[in-house]
């Protein structure tokens, strides 16, 4: 195995999550250049990991902005559900009116039919 092959996996080896391929391990044990790179990757990963504890202090407006955005979304949601409720009421009213009109029409037609039968009789 050559340095060029090993170099592609060195950062993952430094992470130590996956076991290193025996060929890679054998090469690194014998190669000073790859050993040096491995050490550098380990230092880099350690330094990156330490950044996790560095929490920035956001400007005061950040929290206010998040809460205001949530508030606005809540209001939009309330308006939407109110409109949806009204829409449902309108649709229900129209449906009831249509049903009533249909029923009335059916009664009228039925009555006319009966009259025709009587006249014919």
């Amino acid at each position, binding site marked *: 195995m050559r340095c060029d092959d090993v170099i592609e996996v060195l950062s993952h080896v430094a992470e130590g999550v996956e076991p290193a391929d025996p060929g890679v391990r054998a090469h690194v044990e014998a190669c000073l250049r790859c050993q040096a790179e491995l050490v*550098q990757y380990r230092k880099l990963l350690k330094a990156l990991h330490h*950044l996790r504890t560095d*929490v*920035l202090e*956001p400007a005061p407006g*950040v929290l206010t902005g998040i809460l205001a955005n949530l508030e606005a979304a809540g209001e939009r949601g309330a308006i939407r559900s109110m409109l949806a409720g009204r829409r449902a009421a309108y649709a229900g009213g129209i449906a009831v009116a249509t049903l009533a009109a249909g029923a009335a029409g059916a009664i009228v037609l039925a009555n006319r039919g009966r009259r025709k039968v009587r006249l014919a009789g």
Partner: protein
Amino acid sequence: MTAEQADLLAAAKTGDRSAFDELVRATYAEAFTLAYRLTGNEEDARDVVQEAYLRAYKGIRRFRGDAAFSTWLYRITANCAATYLGKRTKARHEDIEEQTSLADERPEVDPAQRADLADERRRLTEALGQLPPDMRAVVVLRDVYDLPHEAIAAELGISEGAAKVRLHRARRKLRERLFPLRGEGGEEAAHAV
């Protein structure tokens, strides 16, 4: 997660807005820090973190608690940042001088050691800021925030294999910037991490 946060989370899941607001207060600095690291500037970080909390609020009932709340929030933030950076057309402001100091100001650390640490973090932050956003995202999510490859791939909309390749390239660039070859970096080499 603290017991208090667990209670707030349980209340927020039932639709309690004030409990969710408290959760925001307890976690927004960390979410903002992640957004800042992903976007590279404060203005974009503000937009990303606002969108992230909005999505979190809308989706909190679906949060099953398989992972920590912070991990769930990091995933949402990463997804929002990826979407935001993908859409963004305005010029990026990456002036390192404008970045907030990440120096460790804890008094228990020896001043000389603190100066070294501050310098190390400044150089690392600077190197991270110079990475292209897609590379910076994978290295920040994996190596700083410890997200699994699978989650990173899902939130960035790429395959797990692509995420690993991108991660290796990002680490390699960082290593080359922080540990220049002898003779090439001069003073830089002497101050390597």
